[in-house]
């Protein structure tokens, strides 16, 4: 088994893991980056979303092998990027209740703003509807994404 090399939040890690291991579990159990969450394991809920080369991907169905050679950004790395205003908006809008899905929400929003710095409400809804929240923070997510988009643009 050749080691897997992953670049996460700008840091390179060599890991002896089964290449078929989902990236989610490599992040959580090998790199102890526990901000990325499991909730469904089948790409339905979005809690495990991270950015891979600026695209939102579901780390629960992306293998370590597939992630190799790409730039991974997790919630822990978001504040080091120019998209930190998303986190500021999340805080000022008091989006989080339980908070468990919020890393996935934030990383989905981050990828959205990467590609569409001025999303309309419909575009925000379309993208953010991929991520489940059981606490019902949806209205605030919508507001926070719009607010952050403005901030990132300026």
């Amino acid at each position, binding site marked *: 088994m050749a080691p897997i090399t992953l670049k996460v939040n700008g840091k390179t890690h060599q890991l002896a893991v089964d290449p078929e291991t989902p990236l989610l579990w490599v992040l959580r159990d090998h790199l102890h980056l526990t*901000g990325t969450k*499991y909730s469904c394991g089948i790409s339905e809920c979005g809690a495990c979303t991270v950015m891979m080369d600026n695209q939102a991907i579901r780390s629960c169905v992306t293998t370590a092998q597939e992630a190799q050679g790409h730039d991974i950004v997790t919630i822990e790395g978001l504040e080091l990027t120019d998209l930190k205003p998303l986190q500021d908006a999340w*805080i000022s809008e008091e989006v*989080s*209740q*339980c908070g468990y899905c919020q890393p996935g929400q934030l990383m989905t929003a981050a990828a959205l703003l990467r590609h569409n710095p001025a999303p309309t409400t419909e575009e925000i809804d379309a993208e953010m509807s991929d991520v489940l929240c059981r*606490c*019902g923070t949806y209205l605030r997510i919508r507001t926070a994404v719009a607010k952050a988009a403005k901030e990132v643009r300026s």
Partner: protein
Amino acid sequence: MSPLVNLSRRDFLKAGAAFSGALILGFKLEEAQGAGPDSEAIFNPNAWLEISPDGPVIIHVPWTELGQGVLTAMSMILAEELEADWEKVEIRKAWNDPRFGRMGTGGSRSIRTSWDPVRQAGAAARVMLEQAAAARWGVSSREVVARQSYIHWRGTDLKLSFAELAKEAARLDVPRDVPLKTRAQRKLVGTSVQRIDAVDKATGRALFGCDHRFEGMVRAVVARCPVLGGKVASFDARQALKSPGVVGVHEISNGVAVLANTTWEAIKGREALSITWDEGDAADLDSAGISALLQSKEADEAAVMRRDGDFARELKAAPTSVQAVYELPYLSHSPMEPMNCTAWIEGDHCEVWGPIQSVSWAEGVAAEAAGVPSENVRIQPTYSGGGFGRRLMVDYVREVVEIAKASGSKVQLFWTREDNTRHGFYRPASRHAMKGTLDSKGRVTGWSHHLACPSISGQLSPDRFPDGRDEGAVDGAINLSYAIDHVDVLYSMTNTAVPTGWLRSVYNTQNAMANECFVDELAVAAGRDPVALRREMLPADSRLLTTLNRAAREWGWPGQPPAGRGWGVACHASFGSYVTNMAEVSVQSGRVRVHKVLCVVDCGPVVHPDGVRSQMEGGTAYALSGLLREEITVENGRVQQSNFDDYLPLRLDEMPEVEVIALDSELPIGGIGEPGYPAVGPAVLNAVYNLTGQRVRKLPLAGNFKG
């Protein structure tokens, strides 16, 4: 009046040397009025305030943070009366400890039981600190004043910090009946300060149960019988033990546990297990059979839970009568964080970390499973990724401790989503046979509600209700807010092998649905406006009436909905709070779309306005989720749903605009976690009727609404 105890003067605390010289106030939180069903999961905790000579003001919060904001809100109440500097208060999640009393978080109790005692404790501590300062300066206490964690000598520049005064204050008696701040004097309570967990939850730093990492910890998943209540007959672990990373396989009372170095390896290892199940008695159980069972219950054999006047006679005499039957499905809590828990046993001690609502219950279960005295069990409740009542049950705590005992390891138990969906404690399915009578002027003269559904407490403790009289099951039904002359509330306890549990607002989810849809049906039969009819039935001093009137005014009711839209109203009181919802819906491509929900809530004093808003928005979303598509069904004793591809919660693009109006007052304080749920569903169903003329009496909406 709840007892305040200066714990620093009590012998049993002397053991904790760390506390020496600290002012520590322990205070008992009150049992809430109208607390709802009692159960193992009812609590009466104490809280602590600790001011050390060399440290910050520390508040030990005995409630689990599930997202409801209790760490922030309870601490605000204390800091307000204490005059503590909010920015420097240290808020800690309390460990289980006999000194905290019976710990657990549920029933929307946290703030309403904290409100009085926590204010009294804060005020008492402030007075003790003032007395200590006055004594130090040799002046009267009237000449000193507390502000921002200091005691100031009025008219001078002199001040002493709380920390500097802690040791002297700790020697004083706790004063009684200290006047509390008036509404106008409050600076913190009633403001929306930033939640203390806001930053950690936006940065991924907040540690939930499954995020905690301990030296030497292994992961475990459990294979459980797919048939509800089934057991392991035999199993072969050979293949699983060969699976990479697997370090052990152990049978526990609830199945077979696979231990591995990582979660993924444990999940893969479990797939390699070969198990023969003893499917037990439930292998023939299915949803159709349960519906038929509920339907077979006769009203005249039901327990009479409330009887005012003579409904039977009124039914015969009244010029008009109306009947309707409502049927609601089982629901799953499905919090985003799956069930998980971490535990280890060392000698005769056991330590447990996890997202746990029922801390004291968990302590007893852990002690039993570990075979250690309960005073040797330490539990740290972690941040919980939602709960909604699921974590009131302690099945997962028992599992992890059994695994820790069998393996001798430090174990983090993890449930997959499929485990969560198939092995839940579901909101009970229910059937409500409603009858009402109207006089010639269209006034409601009689009301009969026959509820058939499982008893949560009765299923947990089968001997508990030999006469089938579970008051919990009729919560929201017997305490009907309307004044009606002839009222029957009947209950047919119908227990099955499907595990049931307390889900956000519990039986109010079903009973409010039946009440409020049926009132709407009565209004139509009487040719009356549904708000006007409710007004007529609500007592003049009813707090629910106040919310109804306010909602009607804000909404512009009665009025004409926009073209293609329908309006509905519902109101309900639960957990000491009063809520009216109005909803606007349309039908698009045969599907109901909810555009707008108004929520007027009276919970008495509003501690954190944005927190209240947040809980009402959340209650609305959770209620809509349970209304639109969610449904747990059973076939061959197996739960048919497994994940978020077949159990379908609300998504962002279905979320209506929600306007929340909280009527802030000094009336008795109510809960806020649950009361946002019950009236949302009926308001929407009434709006659907208003638009389409179709009464949907069976849920979920999807599949039962004929678009």
